[in-house]
């Protein structure tokens, strides 16, 4: 070990290493956090902080960093890692200890970066992660030899196994006093040559890649079968979201309906009953029934993310995406946007080219996020007949598919136009790592689902509840005078606001009730459903809110209006959280306003066309 020792105890450590080596899994294990872990490069895009209490009682501040291939950063997420390691980050002091993480099955790539970091001359520890996978593949690593050659502690870890970081924790505890400050290696030394030497002396590798992975990839990446598998996967997800959720949704509806009728039967007629039945139960219940669909969607997203399929899909689609003006690199951020545009837009930080990144951010809101699902499902249920077409497909399912497709196609059109008019900035690189296949751990998937479910329920219990109550208030007050003959709501605040907005939206077929429902939809898209329930004074009866609402809409709207509203929902950027994250990620108010104007304009134009066309045809 080196003579130079650290005089003070390290108080902060940072996890550094190549992308996808398990830094975040290790971070979660050390700090008890639940940061996102998935099997592709570029999951973590910003630094995350946590706390570790060592067995000795000493506390460490732990920093999880985005993965980087080298300190020569090429994308915003890599720049964060570089700045923190070099002590140049504006909001972060240089960590006392670099906890390097390397994938034991991928040492040719990962050790080079470890050696590059060693040149910084900072105290270091190397965690050889994924030794379980290495063992399975018959890879043998001489830890002691590696430790000797590197000159700092090397420990084996399995970040995804309980107590898989025990060695690391005791190493942190025990070496704390004598943590060697690694002497800077001479700069001329060729890192690649040194990496090869290290591997030749300490690693025995039966095959460079797993034969199993190669066999799977012969099918999954096959030019014909690969595309067929991709299409089948997407269809399966759709079918599942639409068909499997049914029984669960019915159960939720029935219990909410029961709650509504019980309340109505046992409470005296009055304001409080109206608030509970029409405000709270109808408002939140209308959204709550979509919990099963959202969980099924996330189940597939979690499994796909963890399996390693996503970068492969990006590989298959890259050329196609380039021809529309995007890049295969945009695939994962855009796919994430189907869950929610906010994490999707953040995921663009792993895109190196600034123009690619900006374009991806611009079109991400066009991907149908899960918050739009309730609105789509409600309108489809109310207006599209439940019948088979070509004996095979369900017309409702096809409509849903068409709405998703409309978002994707328009994203490609926007990208095409943007490329045509924008100056072409030099060529952009793909350079996408294709990771090893992994079988998703059922426990992690279950935990992930529970988390998503909790997030959704929290949303229902907070923002959606609050907005529902607000809407109930706006549509119940002021109460009309005794001689008022028309529906009470027309006298209310909501009625007046709706009428004022109607002037603007009448050309695309929106009545004032829709206009009212659009406002809370800005804070959370799903609330449009609650909004409609409120303005149509639907209460949770026997059949459940959603059914009651669908019946009310079906009898009062024209098909043209319904389709126009669906079209509006495909495009309209009416989600403040998305606009805020665009503003933050682009750092430009101009870009944000431009995106808002563009998307709103598209929404209005397409809704107008849909409304007029349907009007002509029906």
């Amino acid at each position, binding site marked *: 070990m080196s003579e130079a020792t650290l005089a003070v105890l390290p108080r902060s450590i940072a996890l550094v290493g190549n992308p996808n080596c398990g830094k975040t899994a290790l971070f979660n294990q050390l700090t008890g956090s639940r940061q996102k872990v998935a099997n592709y490069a570029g999951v973590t895009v910003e630094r995350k902080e946590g706390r570790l209490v060592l067995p000795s009682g000493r506390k460490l501040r732990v920093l999880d960093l985005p993965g980087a*291939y*080298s300190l*020569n950063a*090429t994308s915003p997420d890599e720049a964060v890692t570089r700045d923190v390691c070099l002590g140049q980050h504006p909001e972060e002091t240089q960590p006392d200890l670099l906890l390097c993480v390397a994938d034991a*099955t*991928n*040492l*040719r*790539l990962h050790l*080079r970066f470890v050696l590059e970091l060693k040149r910084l001359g900072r105290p270091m520890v190397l965690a050889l992660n994924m030794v379980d996978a290495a063992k399975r593949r018959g890879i043998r690593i001489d830890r002691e030899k590696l430790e000797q050659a590197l000159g700092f502690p090397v420990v084996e870890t399995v970040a995804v196994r309980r107590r898989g970081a025990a060695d690391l924790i005791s190493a942190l505890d025990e070496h704390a006093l004598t943590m060697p400050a690694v002497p800077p290696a001479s700069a001329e030394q060729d890192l*690649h040559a040194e990496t090869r030497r290290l591997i030749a002396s300490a690693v025995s*590798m039966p095959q*460079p*890649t797993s034969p199993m992975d*190669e066999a799977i*990839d*012969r099918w999954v*990446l*096959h*030019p*014909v079968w*690969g*595309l067929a598998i991709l299409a089948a996967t997407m269809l399966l997800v759709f079918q599942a979201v639409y068909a499997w959720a049914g029984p669960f949704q019915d159960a939720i509806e029935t219990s909410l309906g029961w709650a509504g009728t019980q309340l109505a039967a046992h409470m005296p007629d009055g304001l409080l009953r109206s608030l509970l039945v029409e405000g709270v139960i109808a408002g939140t219940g209308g959204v709550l029934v979509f919990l099963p669909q959202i969980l099924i969607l996330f189940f597939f997203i979690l499994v796909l993310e963890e399996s390693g399929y996503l*970068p492969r899909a*990006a*590989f*298959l689609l*890259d*050329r*196609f995406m*380039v*021809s529309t003006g995007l890049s*295969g690199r945009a695939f994962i951020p855009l796919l994430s946007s189907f869950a929610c545009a906010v994490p999707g837009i953040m995921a663009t930080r792993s895109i*190196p080219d600034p123009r690619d990144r900006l374009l991806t951010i611009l079109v991400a809101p066009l991907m149908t996020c899960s918050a739009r699902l309730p609105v789509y499902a409600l309108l489809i249920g109310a207006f599209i007949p439940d019948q088979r077409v070509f004996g095979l497909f369900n017309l409702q399912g096809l409509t849903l598919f068409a709405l998703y497709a409309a978002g994707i196609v328009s994203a490609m059109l926007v990208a095409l136009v943007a490329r045509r008019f924008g100056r072409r900035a030099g*060529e952009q*690189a*793909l*350079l*996408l*790592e*294709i990771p090893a296949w992994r079988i998703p751990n059922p426990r992690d998937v279950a935990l992930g689902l529970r988390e998503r479910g909790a997030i959704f329920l929290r949303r229902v219990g907070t923002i959606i509840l609050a907005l529902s109550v607000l809407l109930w208030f706006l549509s119940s007050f002021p109460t009309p005078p005794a001689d008022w003959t028309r529906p009470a709501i027309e006298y209310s605040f909501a009625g007046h606001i709706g009428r004022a907005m109607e002037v603007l939206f009448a050309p695309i077929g929106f009545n004032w009730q829709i206009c009212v429902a659009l406002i809370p939809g800005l804070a959370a898209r799903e609330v449009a459903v609650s909004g409609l329930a409120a303005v149509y004074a639907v209460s949770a009866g026997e059949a459940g809110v959603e059914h009651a609402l669908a019946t009310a809409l079906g009898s009062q709207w024209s098909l043209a209006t319904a389709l126009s509203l669906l079209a509006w929902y495909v495009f309209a950027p009416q989600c403040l959280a998305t606009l805020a994250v665009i503003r933050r990620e682009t750092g430009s108010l101009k870009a944000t306003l431009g995106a808002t104007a563009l998307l709103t304009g598209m929404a209005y134009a397409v809704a107008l066309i849909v409304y007029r066309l349907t009007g002509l045809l029906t």
Partner: protein
Amino acid sequence: MTLLSELAPGSQAFVTDVQARTASDPVAVRLRDLGFVPGEPVKLVAYGPFGADPMLVQVGFTRFALRRSEAERVRVSSEEPSHV
């Protein structure tokens, strides 16, 4: 001397060098960091479905999807260089 982009699927070769297109070609720098350095064995694993682009290349123990234009920067030869 051939280019990495000209290899047949399944064939193995050794990197001779990576050619920078401009003085500070970031793609070339990154390719070298990823392990495309003289003497390194590379293998062309698969092609993308449209226009045989991108290509899946194995270098070291890792596989990367590279666009044709990226793979064109890497010159390879079928013989293992003796001096490495």
